[in-house]
């Protein structure tokens, strides 16, 4: 009994020593790249097990908090060319625009709309934003195992400057490579979404999950994003991440 108490005491003592912000900053530092490119396959499985599949191409430029990203659908034919531009900011929520080639125009995704589902998937528009550590407060809760890997469990709470549909989130960060293993997003005490990261590989020195399973707790549906042809630090032009570029590229 005393050994157990000692172990608990030691772990608690150790946890108290660890700054959760440092964990997140380290995780962010390890994934810092000039750019990112991948081709993704998005599979949506609804509550009745109906499956729909789409493909997109994702490009990102810049570092966490100040990055710019363009996500462009490549399949099926009905949605080919539809694109989303995300401009992240370190001190506030991102700006997002959607481009529709058939209408030849873009539309702004309002802040109020960020909680809505991203085109029928289980991701919301807010989930496509990049998180910068400065927009959150953190609290280290415990250590847990996810898929056999030991992880820090950190509670993340958005600061006043960050407009979010979530009141708080739990983040599981692997202790061995600081990659995300799982994220649970809550609204008060209700679980809204759970993102499970798997197939984590070392790509150009960056540990990256090649599969993200987003589960919508209320709808009981899943969206599985498989990342392929991932490349980091690919040369990209800054002006490819503007509203004008959306129309040009289509």
């Amino acid at each position: 009994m005393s050994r157990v108490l000692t172990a608990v005491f030691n772990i608690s003592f150790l946890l108290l020593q660890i700054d959760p912000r440092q964990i997140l900053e380290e995780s962010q530092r390890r994934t810092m790249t000039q750019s990112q490119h991948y081709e993704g396959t998005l599979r949506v499985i609804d509550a009745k097990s109906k499956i729909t599949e789409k493909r997109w191409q994702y490009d990102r430029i810049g570092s966490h908090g100040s990055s710019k990203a363009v996500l462009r659908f490549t399949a099926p034919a009905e949605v080919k060319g539809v694109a989303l531009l995300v401009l992240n900011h370190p001190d506030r929520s991102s700006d997002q625009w959607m481009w529709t080639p058939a209408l030849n125009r873009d539309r702004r995704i309002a802040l109020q709309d960020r909680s809505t589902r991203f085109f029928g998937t289980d991701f919301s528009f807010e989930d496509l934003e990049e998180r910068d550590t400065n927009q959150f407060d953190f609290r280290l809760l415990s250590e847990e195992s996810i898929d056999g890997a030991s992880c820090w469990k950190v509670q993340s709470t958005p600061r006043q400057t960050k407009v979010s549909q979530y009141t708080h989130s739990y983040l599981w960060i692997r202790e061995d490579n600081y990659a995300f293993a799982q994220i649970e997003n809550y609204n008060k005490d209700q679980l809204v979404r759970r993102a499970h990261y798997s197939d984590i590989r070392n790509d150009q020195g960056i540990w990256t999950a090649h599969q993200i399973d987003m589960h919508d707790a209320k709808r009981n549906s899943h969206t599985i994003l498989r990342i392929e042809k991932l490349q980091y630090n690919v040369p990209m032009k800054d002006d490819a991440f503007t509203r004008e570029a959306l129309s040009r590229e289509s």
Partner: protein
Amino acid sequence: MMLLCLLSWPYLRRHLLRWILTVAGIVLGVGVFVAMHTANRSIFRAFDTTIGRIAGTTQLQVSAGEFGFDESILERVQSVPEVGVAVPVVEATVDTNIPGQGSILILGIDMTGDRSLRDYELKDADEAIIDDPLVFLAQPDSLMVTTEFAERNQLAVNSKVQLATIEGNREFTIRGLMNSAGMTRAFGGNLAVMDIYAAQQILGRGRRFDRIDVRAKEGITIDDCQAALKAALGPAFDVDPPSARGRHFEALLQSYSTAMMISSLFALMVGMFIIYNSFAIAVTHRRSEIGVLRALGATRHQIQTLFLVESIIAGTFGSILGASVGITAALVIAQWISSVLETAGGVAQRVSELEVDPTLIAAGVIAGITTSVVAAWIPARNAARVDPVQALQKGKYQVLSMGENRRRRWMALTAFLMASVCLLLSDSKPLFYTGYVAMMGAGLLLAPALTLFLSKGLRPVLRRLLPAEGTLAADSLVEAPRRTSATVSALMLSLAMVVGFGGFAHSFYSSIQEWMDNALNPDFFVAPSENLATRSLTFPAEISSVIERVDGVDQVQVVRDARVTYHEVPVMVIAIETEKVASTVHRTPVAGSLEEMNRLTAEGKGLFVSESFATNLKTKMADVVELPTPSGLLKLPIVGIIRDYSDLRGSLFIDRSVYRDWWKDDTVNIARVYVRKGQNVEAVRQRVIQTLSSRYRLLVLTNREVRDWIMKLLDQWFGMTYNQIVVAVLVAVLGIVNTLTVSITDRKRELGVMQAVGGLRSQIRWTVWIEALTIGVIGLILGTCLGAVNLYYTLGMIKRDLGGIGLDYIFPSAFMMLMVPIILGAAWIAALGPGEAAVRGSLVEALEYE
């Protein structure tokens, strides 16, 4: 109760037909009242339901009249801290091209954020039933319709449906079905939802929204949110709850419903006279009976109560029946008025069910019973005052009647003097209406004396026409003025109403004709819809130059118009190319100089308004009008007032350049096209159609077609006038049948003696017929005179309170000429039954009758 059973019931059984006719008067009055009010309520409820259901949880709506506003306003609204949700909306009705379906309401919304405000109640409550939300947004032909609409037209997900858009007939794909509840019950289920940016394209909105639906942030009151939005956006924008949208529709409906209410009041008054007549006759006939009762100890109160209870019973029965008839007719009337309002006001709604208000029904029944009691009050009082001794003597009745006549004449004179004074002070609204009531009252009070006077006056004429029959008929009228005058009064009142409405219609038609001759003189018009009042579809400005290049076209004048709210009144702003219009339209202003008015307006230094605008908004020359626009408050002085009927509530004319600068919009509603001299108009028109039809959905209407459309609209609007004629004819028939029935009863012995001394049946029939025709003639004469007065007041009422329209006094002579054969024909028809009854009775019985 005993008296009712012993006296009233046997009397009723003996004179069943008369009681039926008496009750019919109440049925008519209450039926019209209930039908009109139920129809109005149903129409407004349908419109309100559509607005409310579409609004969902929207608390406020940002709008700028019918012009809409630039998309950039959305960010301004979303950035207001008090705003929780702000969603842009585009809304319009378009033709479905499906036989029997008519139009459908298209709601263009931003699907990414709208679910916070509206619940589409998707079938199976699963968003996935929109097939694929991304496909829905990516494909601009995507549509969500209600299950009701789909089932009605055998449609399902992935079915195609054609809609008439500004770009022509286009095919859309149904990618979602909404359950028929909540929002989807708006517009009778003919509702479709599509992406807002796709809707902008098909409706020709460019980069404009119709409105923004807003919900306040949690913890913020609606009032605070409204104040914050008004402060952020300025006076150019209206920020109101969704229910305020009914303002214009209510204003449009109000003019119509006020006119209908007046009709129903007239109908009740007419019913009142019929009842008065019946009870007055009953009292006369039952004088002996009353005398006996009084002699046996019955009190005056008991006698009066007896007759009043009879009137209550008749009134109750008639009112309940009238309410039933009214409810039955209300749906048909509601649908008819809806179609008129859609055509006239461009505001669409569907009435598929009635909104029956028990309170209204109760009010109608109470009104009917009250009318019956009021009508029977004087006869009941007279019955109570019957002296038992005099009642059993013959001849005394006429002496009493003469005294009554004198009193009435004095009252009529007093009322006339009061009306004359009020006429002099008619600037005051209460005095105007007091004078109106006094004048009509004077006419009604004089009716018995005038009836007697005319009866005596017509006696020589009738004697000359048919010596025996004519004399008998005239004598019957002269000797029983009480019997005749009530019928004549009812007929007079009814005809006065007909003249009032008919005269108004005639004046209006005449004014509209003049307006069309002066202002609507292009050779043809290019419009996006058959309904010229529709403003939800617009063309791009380039259409002007495209049409001008067509061989044979001399000049094109483009117009952009839309309603805005000005001082809480919906008015029409019409942007014209003033210089061009001035060269082709020459009209005499009501105020100001034509040249000055056109010059200043063309230079953007002023605007001119319609007479109804000036009346309704109490403005005059040189007053500065402050118009809210997306660019701020546009302040321009009034430089002219004209007679214009583009909008009954009022219209303002500004130059197109001013409109473009301040509203930042260069779209067009209508193009007015003039053909070069010597060119064949139809050939040029066909060339225009060929040039434009591949690019736009449009109609090229000839001048004649536009005039016919306007006249058809007027015919619909004034359709009520013809209903008044029906009421008048019914009154004539009811009243005259009633009078003649009594007359024949009264003269049973006299007619029996005629037959006994060798009178032919045909002579007796002619006696009855001539009596009826004479009543008709007297009614026509008095009705025409009172109608002439009523027309004056009707036109005054319209100018003051029903649209502010100034119309010239034109007595509808041709219309009245038409009424002569109608009323006389009705009188003759009414006399057929009594005439036959007069000749077919037992001669012995007739001679024994006392």
